[in-house]
């Protein structure tokens, strides 16, 4: 039997406690391509929903890319860390250990992080701190809401008969949310201020993370599914961060018919083709690694040249 890829189990990290699977092309590429690191989605272990991370790893190996899918500490087969890190800090520390390992042990010439949902958010957060990450493939990452989002959201609900029935019978979720908002505003309580303040802080943090990625020249492929509840239109990501210059480094795809985990085989096949096409089109050649301590603020911000928004 002829295999089109090679798979090896690995134990990674400072304590060799992170369980991962490397998938590599059978023949090394003359011009090394960036390696992809696939992150957990929530508490789902490394194979991903519907085994999609296994399938995409094998597909990408045929395109000459090595991939590594691994379990964060405390997820899947990797035991929890013994230090007192928060889950978020623990995930970011794990990613750093994996990127260091790929750099040191495999001589990887650049990294692309891949994540769905929480995995996308972890990928983005980490990429904003490490210039070795050349690209991001993000599926349904967190995007702040915009005014246009609410207009879309309400308009969509208005055309559905069921929603009118819910309004008339007093079971409307939208009405309940609006009533809660009004109640909070009227009460002008500390809780309201805390909530608004927390939302603004999160939005500001997300904007900073995106801005830092752009300053590091990170290429981004962002794929939204039809189930992305906080995202309703193609340009929302760009409009949510008016102070971020995405240049030509952002490509947004919208899979309106897909659910959040791309559960249909056909949807996954389309997703894989988009990913493969994007990797081929990455206009930045892989660069040798520099120290992970590289300071992003030293990088000049390039002039804005536009954003590719497809479909």
């Amino acid at each position, binding site marked *: *039997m002829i*295999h089109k890829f090679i*798979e*090896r*189990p*690995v*134990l990674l990290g400072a304590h060799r*406690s992170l*369980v991962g*699977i490397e998938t590599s092309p059978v023949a090394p590429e003359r011009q090394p391509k960036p390696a992809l690191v696939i992150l957990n989605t*929530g*508490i*789902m*272990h*490394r*194979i991903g*929903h*519907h*085994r*999609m991370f*296994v399938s995409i790893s094998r597909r990408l190996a045929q395109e000459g890319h090595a991939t590594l899918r691994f379990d964060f500490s405390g997820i*899947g*087969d990797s*035991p929890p860390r013994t230090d007192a890190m928060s889950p978020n800090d623990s995930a970011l520390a794990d990613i750093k250990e994996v990127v260091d390992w790929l750099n040191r042990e495999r001589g990887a010439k650049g990294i692309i992080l891949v994540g769905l949902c929480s995995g996308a958010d972890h990928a983005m957060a980490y990429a904003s701190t490490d210039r070795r990450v050349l690209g991001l493939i993000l599926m349904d990452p967190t995007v702040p809401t915009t005014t246009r989002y609410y207009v879309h959201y309400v308009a969509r609900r208005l055309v559905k008969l069921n929603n009118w029935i819910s309004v008339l019978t007093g079971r409307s979720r939208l009405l309940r949310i609006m009533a809660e908002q009004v109640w909070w505003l009227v009460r002008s309580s500390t809780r309201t201020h805390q909530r608004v303040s927390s939302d603004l802080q999160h939005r500001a943090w997300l904007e900073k993370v995106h801005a830092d990625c752009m300053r590091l020249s990170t290429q981004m492929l962002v794929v939204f599914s039809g189930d992305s509840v906080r995202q309703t239109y193609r340009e929302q990501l760009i409009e949510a961060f008016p102070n971020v210059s995405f240049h030509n480094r952002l490509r947004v795809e919208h899979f309106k018919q897909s659910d959040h*985990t*791309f*559960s*249909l*085989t*056909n949807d*996954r096949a389309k997703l894989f083709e988009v990913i493969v096409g994007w990797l081929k089109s990455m206009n930045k050649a892989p660069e040798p690694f520099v120290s992970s301590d590289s300071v992003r603020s030293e990088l000049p911000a390039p002039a804005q040249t536009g954003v590719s928004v497809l479909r």
Partner: protein
Amino acid sequence: MNPFYFGSTARRLFGLYEPASTVETPLRGAVLCYPWGHEYLCAHRAMRQLTTRLTSAGFHTLRFDYFGSGDSGGDMTDTDLTGWECDAALAVDEIQEIVGHAKITLIGLRLGAVIAARLAAQRNDIIDKLVLWDPVISGKEYLQQIGAADRDSMPIDADGNMELYGFPLTEIMIRDISSIQPECLISDSMRRVLTLVTERLPSHERFAQLGSRSELHSIEFMSDVRPWIEDTTNTGHLPIGALQRIVDWLT
């Protein structure tokens, strides 16, 4: 912990061996058989927790992925129960080789329990104990439970397979699953068997009758989380009671 591949070049299987954390005599080994499809994904966490408890109780433990599932080789359409039974047999051989001459326990959840029961009936020279955790007792009942009984209401992939929560269900698998009956899980040649049921189904009546013929077969019913099902109310919950009962019964 030692993740590794075993099996043949054409049928590579992923295994994860975890040694016992206490020294027990005689040596004891356990092989865990996962369920299928979406149930496998949801139950992975519970099976990992069971492994941790088993290693603490002195069991050398091997979890493995069937061909066409998890990190093993093959596509998701390369699946059939006979093939999976062969995979489980290889896993038993593997842990025997790792640990030496040890008494082996097989633990199967849902469809994995069917695989474990079939193998235990053939390999009673090696397999000392068998745990059937919410086993699939009636294939037809199982197909109804997972929504595969009504083909017209399910999405169909390009090859004509039903898609169940993102997993293709091939005609071969439907045929294999349909053939599962209570008698498949009971054999006179088996040694000690615990059937642990947390979700009571109509098929359990017949199964309990069959099981009661043997003093070596105990059937226990208990309420607990069903780890093979995930919804908004139970994500991440673990069936602590069921896990502990399995370990207690084995030790």
